[in-house]
């Protein structure tokens, strides 16, 4: 199992480093030393390479999850409960960086933000930073009004369906823009996607509140 997990290093040409345990050469991005089996510190592996997939916005979440679970099986601190302090600490770092990779790729907004940053493009600010796209602001305002006016579950369900469909279309546009290198468009679309997903979440929360009342 250990060796299987160390195979997907995707030869990024990072060369060798010294294994802290057996002092011999080990691939710079390997999870475990080929020679002595010791867990290594997380290397400079990007999230896509970590799961052995191409750098493409369209990801197969289920396939990534399978990889994620397989790697956690080998790297999680529970596997090192009886090992030395150093191995425990390394496993904690590895598991944390694996969690970060999976969480980032799982969500389309964080995945878009990550890919924009990889391309050297700073995404539009998250919360707190003003967005000055009049069309987006208008769209957001209309959605919010519709949600405020919705009084029963059926109406909210209709809004949720609507927002989800719009979000899916938007996600496809983000994919096309990012994969095609149209980063300026991708930045704007990512902001829009963030709004849409937040709106869907608020609609679900309102539905839950309505159900509880």
């Amino acid at each position, binding site marked *: 199992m250990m060796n299987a997990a160390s195979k997907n290093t995707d*030869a990024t040409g990072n060369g060798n480093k010294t294994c802290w345990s057996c*002092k*011999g050469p080990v691939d710079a991005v390997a999870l475990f030393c080929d020679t*002595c089996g010791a867990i290594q510190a997380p290397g400079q592996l990007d999230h896509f390479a970590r799961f052995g997939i191409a750098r493409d916005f369209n990801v197969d979440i289920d396939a990534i999850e399978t990889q994620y679970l397989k790697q*956690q099986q080998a790297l999680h601190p529970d596997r090192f409960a*009886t090992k030395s302090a150093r191995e425990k600490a390394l496993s904690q770092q590895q598991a944390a960086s694996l969690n970060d990779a999976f969480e980032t790729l799982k969500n389309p907004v964080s995945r878009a933000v990550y890919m924009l940053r990889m391309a050297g493009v700073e995404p539009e600010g998250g919360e707190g930073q003003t967005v000055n796209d009049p069309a987006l602001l208008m769209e957001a305002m209309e959605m919010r009004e519709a949600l405020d006016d919705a009084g029963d579950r059926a109406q909210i369900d209709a809004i949720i369906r609507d927002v989800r469909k719009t979000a899916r279309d938007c996600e496809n546009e983000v994919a096309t823009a990012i994969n095609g290198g149209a980063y300026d468009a991708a930045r704007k679309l990512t902001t829009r996607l963030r709004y849409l997903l937040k709106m869907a979440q608020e609609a679900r929360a309102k539905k839950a509140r309505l159900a509880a009342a």
Partner: protein
Amino acid sequence: MALLTIHEPGQTPLPHEEERKLAVGIDLGTTNSVVAMSRDEKSEVLRNPDGGSAIVPSVVHYASDGTVTVGEAARDLIDSQASQVVSSVKRLMGRGLEDVKSVAGTLPYHVEIPDAPTGDDAASAGPQMVRLNVGNRVLTPVEVSADILRALKARAEAALEQDVDHAVITVPAYFDDAARTATKDAAKLAGIEVLRLVNEPTAAALAYGLDNGAEGLYAVYDLGGGTFDISLLKMQKGVFQVKSTGGDAALGGDDFDHAIVENILAARKADGIDDTIDASAAKRLLKVARAIKEALTARDQVDVAVDINDSETTHSITRAGFDAMIVKMVERTVSITEQVLDDADVLPEDIKGVVLVGGSTRVPAVRAAVASLFGQEPLSNIDPDEVVAVGAALQAEALTGGSDNLLLDVIPLSLGLETMGGIVEKVVDRNTPIPVAKGQEFTTYQDGQNAMMIHVVQGEREMVDQCRSLARFVLSGIPPMAAGAARIRVEFQVDADGLLTVSAREETTGIEQEVAVKPTYGINEIDMANMLRDSMVNARGDMELRLLTEARVEARRNILAVQAAMKADAELLDEGDKNTIAAAIAELEAAMQGDDRQIINDLAEALETASRPFAEKRMDRGIRRALAGQNVNSVRT
């Protein structure tokens, strides 16, 4: 004796007898505690030696002569010696006085808060944990919990006829960092090394999952004496993944008892009887209320006579009446459950099974509410009082003996920092898988500012004063710069136990300053050392033993690594190297049989020196191969 034994990488030889850990699972509950042990994935609760109940009431009696009694015997003294008995102490774990004001009135012992710390301690101290005045002693909740844990350890040792000093201890998923730290401290005081803190619902799911080989989404509804937890778990390919979790750390069956007490007192008041009662009467009345609650599980009506303050009244309580008393609390659990489903973007009908945990799930109104929410009858074929300990024991076995199963847990409450205007900036969102490491950059807002206050909070609200304050510290020594020029990186690390460490660093100048903070809601190191000294545990001996074990583990790792390298790159070894290394290994192995940690460490270092020339040759060849455009891996495979 063979001079050189070669093992396959990853195939560690069996540990020495004294290092083989016998680990139990402990459910440290608000009302009751249970200890269990697992062998070959068969878990069994440990009963007292006469084969009686598995349940140890989480009640401690402190006699005037210093004797400490735990469990049933202590519970029997609640009536006669109310001021010397502590129960439900779990509700106070990691709590400050502000937190317990609401429950303090219902507790029969006096709760106090110590003076704020001064001097060096004050800088890194969070709020102080409450103290209890019991039987002329002042105790922290951590010490009381440690007494319960000692009793459980003793029970396990009696049942297994062997020392037990490692355990998996369960905590409510909703326990915040302070309460988790306090629980770990209690174990340390009791002489137990915690292999892992596991969330109670996760442990319960583990108990069911392994038995049934279940795959799919499961909900665990856990209503205990003092806490409510709801968790969603996805089980697939041997991995138990917590999807989302929620709950209320101060809602449970004890509140049902209180509702009955209030109902009885209100009825007496309506008859013109004074409804103020003393601590002893309150305890007796709670006991009556508990009996009523339990009886109403099987019966529709219970009649009782209450004789306190010299006036006797009779009360007739129906199940419908009881249901009405608790309806608000049950509804609260349902709405928290809906929120948790929503967090995971899951509908009730997506849930494949519902697991019930906690004695309070025996209340028919609770079962009915759960069944109606999920549209299915919940699972309860494992005793709800024992299921958590059973799961904890399975996890203890998995951690010590290896397992194909894996638990992936999440952080239950968001972690953040105070920013301008008392607003919380979230750094780690709730339901983020752990372990996790996340950083955030901040800057100075004044020219020449040389220090920054870092205030760590936990909770979902937007304002600092509505969240729990975990720690405060000052990052000082920031070089003078214009406002906004400094780059201060604050990093949060949450380990697999859900425990947080925070550090901060100024990065622009290359001058690094790092301050690591452990939230101090538990107990600070000085208190801890004093308590260890005061208790029967031989702290020094424990520490020595731990360091010795660690030295042996490290030495063994070292030997295995060198041997693996010798096998892989045998052609780089000349006869001289081989003999030097073999001799160093033999010496180290001999030292490992002994008890001198210093010698083991010195010889481990000697082995490292002896094998350095060999390691250099291996690195040289690695570099040559890389330069020649050859991949080492492709050469080998």
